């Protein structure tokens, strides 16, 4: 027992999280109050195995390893769930998962090497930021202030994703960091908001001095040098665009005019330059990340919620609020979580930590049977909140199909299969233990799509994984399939031990073929099932 406490202490000491605050408690209090007022009976708490598998998917993007499942289920510690959360948030797995998801979000593409930039370097930058506990303001400031070579710099590659050009960057900044669609105002005053065309161009002008530079003379055949780009900010020069107010000439062309930096909401452009050596971008960066910017922190929290539950808490910061009770409450939740995030010092992991620590996150997916049966007898009034709304409000957990990466990673985790992932260069850079390209190729198709279904039925990957799983169980527990083989396969794929009936059914299935083939069929069956292919 003493040893166990020691273990926890050491884990907590290692992960020494910043002030956690009582975000989870506040979230639960707000939710419980809303449930009570709306007649929602929330689902029961999920059991330990369900909790562990869920939090592994949401934090680490994969199913937990068998050893972790066993350790967690055997542990008698009272606070073992929070300890597991903290350990997981501080792990490389969490950093990799964050790096993957945020690279995809910031670049709208899979984190691959692209002709214009290298997504893997962006990913690496983001994963390191997570591990170094860089705060979110710092992270965004570094991305926007980026300069340097495309061979190493994460920020430079982020800027190169948008060609290091003013217009795409202005669109990206407003959309990716503030959740605003100012891009619409590139061509016309925004139809649904107050954004004006000049405000968009004022924003773009902050990037007006960025330049992409390439080596003048490249040795023939030197691919690396040909691809090398340096991002720099010049000390002078202005963004110039066709003057819409001027009369077009005979060929219909308008003269160009300079546009100067201007923050949204400001009435006049800032013509004067700042102090010498100060980046043109600096005032913009300060405005974006300012503590009184109403969108910056909120948008990150909103995105984190979306990452976990598929939809953001607030659909748009620009459209008028929908006006219904549930939407209004979700906006309150966003405010609550945003305060918690800001109070943590913009800790990247904070929104995720607060949510997964809450009781709300740790509920069953199924509604309590009793309340479901009681519903039709309630003659007094119709339920004010639909089932899908109560799911959005975490009254019961929303089951979701796995992404391509989660599918491939979990298959690899569960069976030891790594595909033909031998790209050591990629692995050295991203420190990932799986090949994206393979996950993309075989499983990129969306959940429940035919391609995914066919890949699960017939692909070389599934066959390889099932072979590995069968061989692994035979190595550990002997050649003849028995309950231990089945138990291990369930722990590896479902993160829980099998029920007695399941052991019986699987042993019967395994018995229809010779030993390796029979175990292969059990693994195939588990990997093709709904329980494996969802986070629940």
């Amino acid at each position: 027992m003493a040893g166990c406490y020691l273990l926890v202490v050491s884990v907590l000491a290692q992960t020494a999280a910043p002030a956690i605050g009582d975000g989870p408690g506040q979230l639960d209090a707000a939710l419980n109050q809303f449930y009570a007022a709306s007649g929602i009976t929330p689902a029961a708490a999920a059991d330990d195995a369900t909790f562990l598998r869920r939090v592994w998917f949401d934090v680490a993007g994969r199913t937990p390893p068998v050893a972790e499942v066993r350790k967690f289920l055997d542990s008698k510690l009272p606070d073992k769930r929070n300890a597991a959360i903290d350990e997981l948030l501080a792990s490389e797995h969490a950093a990799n998962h964050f790096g993957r998801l945020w690279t995809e979000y910031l670049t709208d593409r899979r984190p691959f090497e692209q002709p214009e930039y290298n997504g893997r370097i962006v990913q690496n930058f983001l994963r390191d930021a997570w591990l170094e506990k860089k705060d979110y303001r710092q992270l965004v400031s570094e991305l926007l202030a980026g300069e340097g070579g495309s061979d190493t710099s994460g920020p430079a590659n982020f800027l190169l994703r948008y060609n290091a050009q003013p217009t795409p960057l202005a669109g990206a900044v407003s959309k990716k960091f503030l959740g605003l669609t100012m891009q619409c105002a590139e061509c016309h005053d925004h139809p649904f908001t107050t954004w004006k065309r000049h405000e968009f161009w004022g924003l773009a002008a902050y990037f007006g001095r960025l330049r992409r530079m390439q080596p003048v003379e490249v040795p023939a055949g030197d691919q690396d040098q040909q691809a090398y780009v340096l991002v720099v900010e010049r000390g002078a020069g202005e963004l110039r665009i066709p003057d819409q107010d001027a009369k077009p000439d005979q060929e219909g062309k308008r003269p160009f005019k300079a546009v100067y930096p201007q923050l949204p909401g400001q009435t006049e452009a800032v013509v004067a330059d700042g102090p010498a050596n100060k980046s043109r971008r600096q005032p913009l960066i300060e405005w974006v990340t300012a503590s009184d910017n109403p969108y910056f922190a909120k948008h990150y929290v909103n995105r984190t919620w979306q990452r976990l539950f598929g939809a953001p808490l607030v659909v748009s910061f620009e459209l008028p609020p929908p006006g219904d009770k549930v939407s209004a409450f979700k906006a309150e939740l966003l405010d609550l979580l945003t305060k918690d995030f800001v109070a943590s010092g913009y800790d990247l992991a904070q929104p995720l930590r607060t949510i997964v620590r809450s009781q709300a996150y740790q509920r069953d997916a199924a509604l309590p049977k009793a309340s479901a049966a009681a519903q039709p007898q309630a003659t007094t009034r119709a339920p004010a909140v639909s089932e899908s709304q109560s799911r959005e409000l975490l009254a019961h957990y929303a089951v979701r199909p796995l992404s391509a990466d989660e599918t491939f990673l979990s298959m690899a985790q569960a069976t030891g299969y790594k595909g033909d992932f031998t790209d050591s260069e990629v692995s050295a850079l991203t420190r990932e233990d799986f090949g994206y390209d393979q996950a993309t190729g075989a499983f990129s198709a969306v959940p429940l799509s035919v391609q995914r279904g066919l890949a699960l039925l017939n692909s070389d990957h599934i066959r390889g994984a099932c072979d590995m799983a069968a061989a692994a169980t035979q190595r550990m527990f002997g050649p003849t399939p028995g309950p231990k083989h089945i138990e291990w396969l369930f722990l590896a794929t479902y993160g829980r031990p099998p029920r007695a009936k399941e052991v019986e059914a699987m042993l019967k299935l395994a018995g229809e073929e010779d030993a390796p083939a029979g175990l292969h069929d059990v693994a195939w069956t588990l990997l093709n099932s709904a329980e494996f292919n969802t986070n629940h």
Partner: protein
Amino acid sequence: MSACHSPSRRDFLRLSLAGGLCWAASRAAIGAAADSAGSHSAQAKASVLVFLEGGPSHIDMFDPKPGQETNGPFKAIDTKIAGVQFSEHFGKLAVVADRLTVIRSLSSPEGDHDRAQVLLHTGYQPTPALNYPAIGSVVARETAVDDLDLPAFVSFGDTTGPGYLGQQFAPFVVGDVNNISPNLNLPEGLTETRVSRRLRAVQALNTSFGSRVDANTATDFSRLTVRANRFRQSPAMKTVDWAAAEPKAWEAYGGTNGDGNVARMFLAARRMLEHGAKFIEIRIGGWDTHTDNFNQVAALAGPLDAALAAFLTDLGQRGLLDQTLVAMFGEFGRTPKINGDNGRDHWNDAFSAVLAGGGVRGGQAIGKSDAKGEAVAERPVKVADLHATILSAFGVDPAKQYRTPDGRPIKLTNAGEVVREVFG
């Protein structure tokens, strides 16, 4: 929410539930805001888009300019349409031109390949603010039913995606017509008996999962497994040796001309249409003829001319042409002026599209380019109009609105107007 009670919304939910897509549908929160059909009598039930990637040369194909220096070396030949000529390399299509409507007055604002391909596929100029869906995804969204033996939207070659409609309406992309899907075949040595046994075991686990955790998800996955297994067994999804299976058709489709892949795609498309596919895109690349335009166009034309002409005739004989709208275009035309490399460059001020089947009145040309083929001279048609016309063949109102996941109402076409003469 009133949209929940409109027929299209209901149909969509039915499709979603039946198709095992209910999770995706609820997450994407797509709602149709209108449900009126186009005004002319709709008859298309499926569509084939032949997309000529790279920008096919309008003057060297369906809009020749005999006597003009911009015409180049190709002769113009008469077609079944009185007073309308094609280039000499489209002799087989000339013979079946009574089935075709040729639009010669398209123009577009995009001259860059990527941007123009998005425009021609979605009817909207690309913008970072919103991803518009490819027309194939829209048609799949509007027409697909659950009991198909194969995916509703199949594309031979990678194409524009489903945009804000969400991945459930994404194309099933066939990368290589010689291997339609690598995962269609069972691993060697696996018997159907063993597959059935595994599938029964999966269903049993799913049923248990459904009763404990989430019945809808369990049903979705069970249906997916069954569907994927059904697609695996569908003859329409198999890679066929057409030369052996249908030697006459192989010959007629021009299979012996070149590598035969163009013929293979059309034959596979025919088979998929017979099995109920809703939208098939056939992408044929190589039309970006900046250099050596004439030899290249001649080489590309042979297989295309044979395959499309045979395809239309074949569909006609099988009674499928009336319900299948066939459209062919690329992302733009090419410069009337012939450049120093005997090539033609990008030209988006005037180009052509060909339509047939699905209620299209054959035997006519709509619109004109000017004498040199440089600009639209009569009856201008915008890309959005072309999209509106294709959608209206299905009875879909081009002004119908969808909602994006963040709640913005977006019209199916960008103020596109149906080119009524097409249906005469």
